[in-house]
């Protein structure tokens, strides 16, 4: 079945976030005002094994994790690659990822980043792909942690909410509705393609 990359079903995103354990973040920044820094820190605090990848910062650390220059330098299997680069820099990262042995299970492109050709290549090799989404936002939304900021998590639950603590993985298994397919998000995607 052809993946619809304009609007993902919540179950697709949920199964990715529930199953991956290690995430290499390409383009991670040690500057604490960059979105990649927020996302790295949040995902680390939610229990993911995070690896910062950025050739410009080798020798430094991000939350105690040493930067590596490239995916090949990680030297152990990783589940997901989160690409914090502009759309035009995605393809080489995906090509590098596909050379890893074993290859990662998931390629994730950040909010604002999308490369359909790269996605097709990764999917042809059996990888799952998410484009133009932030894993921090999706995790916060599916766990409902994000609704502390008034965000529509598009999930419901009649179970007692957990009290999140550092390093804790939250349950993402709430009842979803219209996962990512609200009229609004469809229209946003459509507006984007209509006005490049």
């Amino acid at each position: 079945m052809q993946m619809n990359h304009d609007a993902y079903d919540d179950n697709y995103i949920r199964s990715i976030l529930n199953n991956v354990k290690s995430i290499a973040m390409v383009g991670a920044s040690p500057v604490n005002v960059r979105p990649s820094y927020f996302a790295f820190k949040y995902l680390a605090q939610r229990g993911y094994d995070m690896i910062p990848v950025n050739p410009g910062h080798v020798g430094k650390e991000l939350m105690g994790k040493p930067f590596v220059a490239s995916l090949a330098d990680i030297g152990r299997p990783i589940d997901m690659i989160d690409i914090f680069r502009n759309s035009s820099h995605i393809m080489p990262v995906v090509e590098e990822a596909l050379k890893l042995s074993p290859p990662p299970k998931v390629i994730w492109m950040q909010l604002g980043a999308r490369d359909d050709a790269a996605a097709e290549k990764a999917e042809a090799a059996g990888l799952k792909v998410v484009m133009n989404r932030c894993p921090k936002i999706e995790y916060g939304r599916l766990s409902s942690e994000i609704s502390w900021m008034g965000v529509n998590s598009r999930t419901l639950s009649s179970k007692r909410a957990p009290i999140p603590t550092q390093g804790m993985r939250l349950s993402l298994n709430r009842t979803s509705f219209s996962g990512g397919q609200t009229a609004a998000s469809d229209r946003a995607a459509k507006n984007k393609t209509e006005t490049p």
Partner: protein
Amino acid sequence: MTDRLPGFSTLAVHAGAQPDPTTGARATPIYQTTSFVFNDADHAASLFGLQAFGNIYTRIGNPTNAVLEERVAALEGGTAALAVASGHAAQLVVLQQLLKPGDEIIAARKLYGGSINQFTHAFKAFGWNVAWADPDEIESFEGAVTPHTKAIFIESIANPAGSITDIEAIAAVARKAGVPLIVDNTLASPYLIKPIDHGADIVVHSLTKFLGGHGNSLGGIIVDAGTFDWSKDNKYPMLSEPRPEYHGIRIQETFGNFAFAIACRVLGLRDLGPALSPFNAFMILTGIETLPLRMQKHCDNAKAVAEFLSTHPAVSAVNYAGLPGDRYNALQRKYAPKGAGAVFTFSLKGGYDAGVNLVSNLKLFSHLANVGDTRSLVIHPASTTHSQLDDAAKVKSGAAPEVVRLSIGIEDKEDLIADLDQALRA
């Protein structure tokens, strides 16, 4: 497997709410506190730097208010919402994100009288100029667009006359002009109209009216549709430029499709200050649980009352979009098929004096300046809400001297009709 979309009534009861983590309380607790402790210095810094989700201080956010925000965002089909102290505060906070001195907003001429005042006087003093357009003539919106235009503002069902706005036609003008469409959905509520489905980019409400619904709490809310690209052409620097107070982060880049709601919170509410009391949020949340039931009853009663008035000898005209002959009936059937709302006007053959008399003769209807209460309400706009306008402006905004406005409650319709009948005969 695809997710199931719960119905509107299920969302009205459940969206945003979950049993309390510490006590298991099932109703949403009232977190009546000004502030929240930090785990440690690093936690505090990450909250202040917008790196973590969490509570700091009730002016910026509160867990009771957050439930209300998520609930209304879900009902409207938006990505996020921000609750504020009143409907007027919502309008102020929205426009502060969009306009700089010298910028313009195009607003429908048919608006709540208080909004006309706010735009004409208070906003003018900020250097925000308003160009008025007629929602019955879409070309007047097109003609008002200039290089300084930053937004278009309309009401879905317009106060006071209950006229229905062609949201899709005006959304097309906004899209062409590259500006967001803001829809005040107060009189319709999302039960009747969901403006985002028709092209709105931002929805605002006075929660004081049908959403709260019981005439006991002021409140307002801003819903972000997540549809507008704020960074295009750098027209909206509050969202696209680095924010010095947050270490240079860019709001849209960081928060994606709910960036506008975040900007309203961390730039607007934080600095302007019109926070909603958690107690009011609780009252309004409780009201929203019965919104679908109330709204249908409001509409059914209003239709019966409008039908009664339309044949009454003392009445010269009834403006109710739910009546078959009404000029807005076609738009009502398109945009609000479940009902035309509960706020409408009618004209008395006896003019201004008959309006004043009617109001004083009614026994069940309350004479006051509000709409969207369980109780039926009446007002004579020309001598009250719209009294600051000159006669020509009164007529243009639907508040001519012989006009009386009703907001029909959820009592028994027979009693409402009997009260109007005795008052019209008295």
